[in-house]
């Protein structure tokens, strides 16, 4: 998991060009991977779809080169600082307290600040972190983008950016300390440095030795020669007012060589080694934050869900073709069917009920007969052949007219003079049809549009 994968993932999500099926197919092929590994593999498999130059490539390349450049600068600054601190003026010896301040106190202080800054790492404006020169790396980088006119800047979460700054801050500090150590070794090798310690504070040699022993605790057991003895400490005490070195010190100048070993070990144990550990810690945290940010990236939940959940479809694959009805009005409508008819017919209504309906609606007819229902089509034809003159046909209003019914009307119209269709309701409704059912019948009759056919709304 690295920054490139993180940026590529964001860019791929912006493209949003994958179907539900593609996500699921990927999920099935990689079902055993953890969500984060799944995302990493998905990015790896699909990053070729990103337009070139890839934002991640550009970003990481610039970040790498600027880090390298600043790392080199930190090394040079460290070396130059070291040489400066260890320069022997020829008048006064080199005050090792200066060197200790830069090689031990300063790194410890910056490491402390780095650890403190982790507490507010999620904030966009982390003031402690912004004190670090490494922060300006990101600023310079932003300027680079602006100069190139590249508008496609990667979208990176503040805490990721902050960890990047923090990681690079450790790297720069490490290079600086290494430069300092190199300068110490260089100066020790190439010149004869007279080390001494000097301070305005009233510090006794015993106290200073105790302090040094405490500092030397990490290495005293494997490199005891890198800890100056109390005598050496006492002899190295330099007073400006005296203006010269202790006579015993000059006589035993060789003993003073222990100081460079002490400074080298102090730089190693308080600046370089802890910084390496802090760098590793921050790098591990950065990886964790990258993973966490990837999982919480906008739209990732949906992507993972689409990968992990089966595609369940219950919809028709082809479009539905449906018949559309014209809303024609039908003009041959009466609201009273009473009167004399040559025959009363019931469409799927038995004869007894047809006669009953005749009585109900004050209709006189010569005979009542059944059409449709359990009749065969031949039986219907025979009945229709007997019809002539005015015919009344009762229909169940709730049963929509079928083609079977249309066939019957077509045949009947050939022999009858006038056909009156009476849609009736159920017994429960006192044979009163529902308005919605009547509309259906009216629409059907409009499609038949036979001048002999009338509809009676009772």
């Amino acid at each position, binding site marked *: 998991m690295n920054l490139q994968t993180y940026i590529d993932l964001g860019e791929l999500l912006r*493209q949003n*060009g*994958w*179907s539900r*099926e*593609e996500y*699921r*197919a*990927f999920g*099935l*092929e990689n079902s055993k991977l953890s969500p984060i590994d799944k995302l990493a593999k998905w990015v790896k498999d699909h990053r070729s*779809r990103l337009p070139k130059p890839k934002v991640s490539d550009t970003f990481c390349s610039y970040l790498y080169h600027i880090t390298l450049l600043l790392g080199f600068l930190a090394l040079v600054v460290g070396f130059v600082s070291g040489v400066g601190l260890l320069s022997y003026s020829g008048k006064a010896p080199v005050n090792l307290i200066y060197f200790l301040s830069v090689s031990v106190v300063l790194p410890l202080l910056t490491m402390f600040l780095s650890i403190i800054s982790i507490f507010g790492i*999620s*904030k*966009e404006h982390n003031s402690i972190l912004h004190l670090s020169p490494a922060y300006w790396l990101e600023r310079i980088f932003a300027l680079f983008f602006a100069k190139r006119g590249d508008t496609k800047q990667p979208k990176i*979460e*503040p*805490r990721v950016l902050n960890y990047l700054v923090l990681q690079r801050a450790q790297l720069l500090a490490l290079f600086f300390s290494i430069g300092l150590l190199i300068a110490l070794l260089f100066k020790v090798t190439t010149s004869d440095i007279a080390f001494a310690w000097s301070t305005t504070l009233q510090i006794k040699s015993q106290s200073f030795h105790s302090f040094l022993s405490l500092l030397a605790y990490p290495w005293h057991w494997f490199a005891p020669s890198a800890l100056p003895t109390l005598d050496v400490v006492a002899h190295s005490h330099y007073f400006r007012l005296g203006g010269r070195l202790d006579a015993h010190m000059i006589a035993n100048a060789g003993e003073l060589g222990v100081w460079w070993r002490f400074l080298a070990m102090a730089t190693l144990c308080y600046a370089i080694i802890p910084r390496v550990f802090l760098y590793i810690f921050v790098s591990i945290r950065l990886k964790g934050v990258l993973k966490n*940010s990837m999982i*919480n990236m906008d739209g990732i*939940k*949906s992507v993972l*869900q689409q990968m992990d*959940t*089966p*595609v*369940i*479809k*219950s*919809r*028709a*694959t*082809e479009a*539905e*073709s*449906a*018949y559309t*009805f014209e809303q024609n009005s039908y003009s041959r409508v009466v609201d009273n069917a009473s009167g004399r008819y040559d025959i009363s017919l019931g469409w*799927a209504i038995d004869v007894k009920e047809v006669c009953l309906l005749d009585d109900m609606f004050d209709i006189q007819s010569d005979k009542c007969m059944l059409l*449709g*229902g*359990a*009749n*065969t*089509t031949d039986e219907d034809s025979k009945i229709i052949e007997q019809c002539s003159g005015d015919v009344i046909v009762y229909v*169940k209003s*709730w*049963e*929509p*007219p*079928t*083609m*079977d019914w249309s*066939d019957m009307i077509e045949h009947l119209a050939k022999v009858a003079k006038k056909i009156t269709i009476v849609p009736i309701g*159920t*017994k*429960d409704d006192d044979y009163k049809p529902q308005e*919605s059912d009547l509309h*259906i019948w009216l*629409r059907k009759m409009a499609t038949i549009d036979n001048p002999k056919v009338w509809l009676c709304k009772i």
Partner: protein
Amino acid sequence: MAKKDGNHRQPKGLAMQNMTNKHPKFAVVGHPNKGKSSIVASLAQDDSIKISDTPGTTTQSRSLPLEVDGEILYELYDTPGFQRPREVLEWLRSHDVPAHKRADVVREFINQHKNSDRFHDEIELLRPIMDGAGILYVVDGSKPYGVEYEAEMEILRWCMQPSMALINHIGKSDYSSEWRAALGQYFRIVKSYNPMNSDPRQQFELLEAMVQLDENWREPLQRSIKLFKKLREQRVWQSKDVIVAEIVESLRLKERLSIKGESASDAQKANLENRYKNHLREIETRAQHQIEKLWHHTHLQKEIAPQPLNDLDLFSQESASIFGLTRKEMVMTGMLTGAAAGAGIDLLFAGHTLLLGGLIGGAVGAVGAYVGFDELSEMRVLGQQIGSRYLEIGPMQNRNFPYILLGRALYYLHALTQRSHAKRDKLALDMDSDFKDRWLDDETAKALEKQFKMLRSDNGSIDTKELDELILKCITKVVTL
């Protein structure tokens, strides 16, 4: 780049199973206008199927497969109604064949008439049956039985396929008993099923009954039931994500307006507030549409009510009183949340603070809730030093707003999940003032308040894990899984 439409090639890993007879198929058949399409829409959870009170709306058989990762578990066929059943039956009966050969006669009928318009609808409905589909014969139990149905039932018997009758209740009257007596003579299984009011449990029961039609269909159908349950869970999860995203986006929304001069005029302030509110409304509408899509109610979105909660505006007093907390509830919630935070300090000092932490925290929380009850958001002029000034509003400071937003989202989700896919009428949302009590208790309100507070104050990245869990809990209280 992959296309997002349905015509793209099936990706590797989701190999489409061939349309063979391996999976169960069911043809929903019957007299015209008896609710066949409604039953299909309800079982397939698809509101795109055309349903009309006009007979003959369905003119072609249409397959609706239940597909899981490209594998078809079962297939439903929506078919046109019988138009000339007596003629068809007479044709079949004119062939003197022993009972076990009757299906061949039906096949012969299809072959002979496949190019004729006269039996178009019958062929459309018989074809899937003769291709191996089980029969779901639909009648309307709210209308009296009629002998004219017997021709249809007899034709289906000739098909020699497993069959089942479904009594649909379109109207209020009940003629089920006479229908059951008649249907029982033709079908081994007769069940009542009302697609308009069916809930998931009834749909699963129907699928269970369909299992009995053929032993070979047991495994895929039972898997389908499990998958439908899983699908519902998935939708609940996805709805939760939509609602969480809606809340996060709404609470963190900021709106800006460039201004000239030192300060903003009242008109500019009103304009910005209006834009801010409209933006919030858009976020809500977008979330509603996403939920509709998740639950396959897109038809509702296209043709019926695009914004059913529009009548009750997001910022109306009525909306606040129905969905939000009352001032008293808000103060209590604020007090409890503040007291909990203060109690942490008391605990830290092992009670040596004389419980002042809890008391002060509670008081601060209560006052904050009281003051922030009506306030929408602070409006301020920014960019004074840079030169280009602008007026900014947001993020949302109104303490009641997230509850209103969440209440409305839950209500909408609840209404949609209750709605049958067979329904085509306008989604009616009967505002129920007791609805809030179903999902919001004191404990939930306290936990939600903590999350909303974090959302209001956090500018950086956010982790919505706890909010996710809370909202999922609320959803499960209003949506039956």
